[in-house]
């Protein structure tokens, strides 16, 4: 697998774009895999009692999924040395149906001395941002 060349990167370069979907099964699968069994991610009644319109995706499912764009581009999942985000808007997952998430990854900064690039992820549902300041530092 080829690794990106740090010297060839410029701030503003779009390194990837993708659309991912979550259905209710994806939420249940993530709940089991992660151990996060909070019922707001699988029980509509519980979610509504908590003041939500219905079941929402785990913020960590969205965060964990969209970084795949970065690890695949980097050619090495261990190259992501730092990754952070704010959760700005819940992702509602209908039943039946899917939530559709659009992801664009852009170079936000290049630090030649440290050998790292910062990748900024724009993550939206129907044009509304669901993650804020989603940034991954990648060692190349």
């Amino acid at each position, binding site marked *: 697998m080829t690794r990106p060349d740090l010297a060839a990167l410029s701030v503003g370069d779009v390194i990837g774009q993708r659309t991912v979907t979550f259905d209710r099964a994806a939420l249940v699968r993530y709940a*089991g895999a*992660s*151990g*996060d069994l909070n019922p707001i991610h699988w029980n509509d009644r519980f979610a509504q009692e908590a003041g939500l319109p219905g079941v929402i995706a785990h913020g*960590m499912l969205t965060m964990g999924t969209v970084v795949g764009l970065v690890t695949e581009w980097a050619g*090495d*999942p261990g190259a992501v040395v730092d990754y952070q985000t704010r959760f700005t808007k*819940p992702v509602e997952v209908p039943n039946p149906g899917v939530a559709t998430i659009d992801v664009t990854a852009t170079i936000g900064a290049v630090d030649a001395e440290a050998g790292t690039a910062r990748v900024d992820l724009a993550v939206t549902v129907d044009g509304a941002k669901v993650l804020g300041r989603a940034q991954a530092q990648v060692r190349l």
Partner: protein
Amino acid sequence: MANADFEGRVYPADAPYSVGREKIREFAVAVGATHPAHHDLVAARGLGYPDLVAPPTFAVVVAQRTEAQYVRDPEAAIDFSRVVHADERFTHHRPIVAGDELTTVLHVDRIVSRGAISMVTTRCEIYAMPQHVEVPSPEAETPGEHVATVTSTLAIRGEDA
């Protein structure tokens, strides 16, 4: 309202979490991580890792288990039906790999309440224990090799928010 007395508390290294290959594969499938280093031993070793590499957010599995010591404590007054996740950060000093025995020191860094909303920030310092050690030593300066730092903020709405 989260109990502000917990700010500054440090919970000592907990019982080790054993990172298994199938858990890495299962978590990778759940987050749609298709990179072969999560699934295929030959691919992981080809990149220089001793075993399968965990996805960048896998450490949340370890961190949430450790955070439960604090957030599930009734004295902490964190009502989980009123919690939303506000932010999360992972800093990897080295990637987590299958075979790691991880122990975590939990810090309650910050508890701030404004109006009916409490913001609680925790920090998990995750260490890989030396292979021949089965329980964290209370005397050791650190429980092992520092692998990752996971910082998480929860927002808790009060009854009238």
